[in-house]
């Protein structure tokens, strides 16, 4: 009967499947950061169209998740490249080595700025990182003085500094699973809270308490977790001129007619200010290549060449058009050299 045929079909499909997986994979498999994803996909597409290789497959798994998959082992069932919006940690490299992934090539591709923005119709604002910390941390130093933390008492921006607008504090930002949130916490909140000497001192005595003090965001409605979708934050800011939002620089760049970025430490988020490092809230972006897969999976070397070429990563390359801040000249030359010789990390 039909059922017998179906059972046979199921069995044969299963066997073909395992046979298939053990043979070579014809395309590059890439995993990793959702921040690098918009840049890597552009390169992958260009690579697929202009060479005889297949277009690489890119999964957006987040930096940590990507490195975990990447480090799981050598072989066609494991990804060849992982994107990351932070440098790989020593502990992760150890994990990699323990699973046989010995030689890893690091490629730094450029910088990404994180902007604090608001509606175009609102008045210009300039923040310091200390002010942002005071506005957004769950517990802040007692405004009456003394070296102790109290539940955040600030209701409006003016409560923090008279120069800031008299608006209720309302900041839309990404949830804890987001790389943008990690970077914001590290680059703004940590910096802001270390500007208080007694909190900085805590770091030596009790690392966990220091982390809790600096990195825990308010839960009383002043900080609104608006989801991973930066487009949604942009739409909400447009509708509500009194609110601020935290998002990647490329979203600010694409929506200049709707939103504008607030200056931080007096520097506005612009292409140039992020590139020369004067805008303080920016982070490097990377990808990591498994050297053992070069030559096994077709096209890895060529993909590296495409990514590091001047027409992609260079100062006027197509990635800068998408909002990636290019590397300074000398650093770029070093990256290109490493990619050519496939030099692994030490």
């Amino acid at each position, binding site marked *: 009967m*039909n059922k017998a045929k*179906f059972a046979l079909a199921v069995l044969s499909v299963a066997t073909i*499947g395992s046979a*298939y997986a053990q043979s070579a994979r014809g395309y590059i498999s890439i995993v990793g950061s959702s921040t690098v994803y918009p840049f890597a996909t552009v390169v992958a597409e260009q690579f697929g169209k202009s060479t005889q290789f297949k*277009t690489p497959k890119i*999964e*957006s798994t987040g930096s940590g998740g990507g490195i975990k998959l990447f480090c799981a082992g050598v072989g066609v069932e494991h990804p060849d490249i992982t994107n990351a919006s932070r440098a790989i940690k020593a502990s992760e490299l150890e994990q990699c080595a323990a699973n046989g992934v010995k030689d890893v090539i690091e490629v730094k591709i450029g910088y990404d700025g994180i902007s604090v923005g608001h509606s*175009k119709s609102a008045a210009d604002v300039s923040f310091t990182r200390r002010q942002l910390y005071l506005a957004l941390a769950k517990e802040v130093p007692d405004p009456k003085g003394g070296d102790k933390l109290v539940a955040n008492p600030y209701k409006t921006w003016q409560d923090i500094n008279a120069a800031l607008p008299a608006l209720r504090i309302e900041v839309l930002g990404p949830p804890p699973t987001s790389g943008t949130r990690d970077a914001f916490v590290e680059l703004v909140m940590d910096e802001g809270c270390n500007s208080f000497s007694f909190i900085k001192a805590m770091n030596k005595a009790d690392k966990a308490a220091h982390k809790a003090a600096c990195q825990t965001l308010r839960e009383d409605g002043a900080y609104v977790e608006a989801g991973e979708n930066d*487009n949604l934050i942009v739409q909400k800011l447009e509708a509500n001129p009194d609110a601020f939002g935290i998002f990647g620089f490329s979203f600010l760049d694409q929506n200049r007619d709707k939103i504008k970025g607030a200056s931080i430490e007096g520097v506005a988020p612009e292409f140039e200010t992020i590139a020369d490092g004067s805008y303080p809230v920016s982070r490097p972006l990377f990808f990591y290549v498994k050297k053992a897969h070069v030559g096994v999976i077709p096209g890895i070397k060529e993909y590296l060449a495409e990514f590091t070429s001047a027409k992609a990563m260079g100062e006027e390359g197509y990635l800068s058009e998408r909002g990636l801040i290019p590397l300074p000249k000398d650093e770029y030359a070093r990256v290109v050299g490493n990619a050519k010789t496939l030099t692994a990390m030490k």
Partner: protein
Amino acid sequence: MSDASETARTSYARVEAGMKRRRAAERRFRFLGKCAVGLGLAFLAILFVSIVGNGYSAFWQTRITLDVTIDEATIDPAGAREPQVLRTADYGALIKQSLRDMFPEVSGRRNRFALYGLVSNGAGFDLRDKVLADPALIGRTISLTVAADDDVDMLMKGHIDRRAPESDRRIKDNQLAWIERLETDGRIGSAFNVDFFANGDSRDPELAGIRGALMGSIYTLLVTLGLSFPLAVSAAVYLEEFAPKNRWTDLIEVNINNLAAVPSIVFGLLGLAVFINFFTLPRSAPIVGGLVLTLMTLPTIIIASRAALKSVPPSIREGALGIGASPMQAVMYHVLPLALPGMLTGTIIGMAQALGETAPLLMIGMVAFIADVPGGVFDPATALPVQVYLWADSPERAFVEKTSAAIMVLLLFLATMNALAVLLRRRFERRW
């Protein structure tokens, strides 16, 4: 005697007195019911209006007509017409040349880049396909209509305000002047967006298409249907018609009912552990997606199929057995055909649920950028709801309308499946 009629009268009066209240309660209840239906319809209408309103423009694409001279020296200097040479030649240079010819006054690197930015990055590949199809074109000047860049498209569709200050626009003043000249020359126009239905995913909104995701969804659902329907029907028939009623079958029944309520992400994790890590099937492939969704839809179909079997009157079975059919013959030729419409309805509901699922696909790597349209169940693929999610997350403005358009395609797919279910039911259903 009079006592009794007295009691009857008073109880009648009491009923009469309460009647008004009861009727009012009845009216209120009906009114609330209507309100609930009306509210539901209103939300549905809002949803459709916003999706169609945002997305209908994605089915049109701004196109620019260029006069391209296919210069032999640029693309085939040897003149041998070798396919390999023709395939890798720099067709973008020809497109750029034709733009320079059209606007000879544009000078300077920056301005030229702005000029080249008017047409899509895919224009050169369009030209390549044309030349590969007909190498006789080399050396001639042809009129080629190519997709405009997504920013130009947004401008023409009115999503970018021409009167806004220059710094607020992604289309700069010089580009605007060129576009206006193209408009007066009648070289810029709008056409049905064929690319949207013919292409796979792309990071250029004007080149991005739904086909890859659509094929991915179709392959995944084919695997799901091919596995879950026969398995679920066999399980339901055995449990309903043949299995002895004891503690074991009770346990199985309770478990099937519980499985139907398990969150789908759990099945994704199971799929990752079993199909990918243990059986080493490829990541991101519709075969794994189909297997995972099979696990998810099995309980739904089993429960629906058992209900359908239960609704077949016992007289059918008894009649068949009475004229000497074996129990298997009674089930195969008498009960099953009558229960089939109900089973099909259950299957389609399960399939519709599987079509909209993204959570388990996340675990098995189907949430990914995949530009090539999948050609089989082992090729990497995404699915329609995943494509909606990926586009909604893209920074380029033009993806907003693409997202809504993808939702429309998804809804259409769903409506087609449901219509099929209604049709099948109408055809086969028997009422008792």
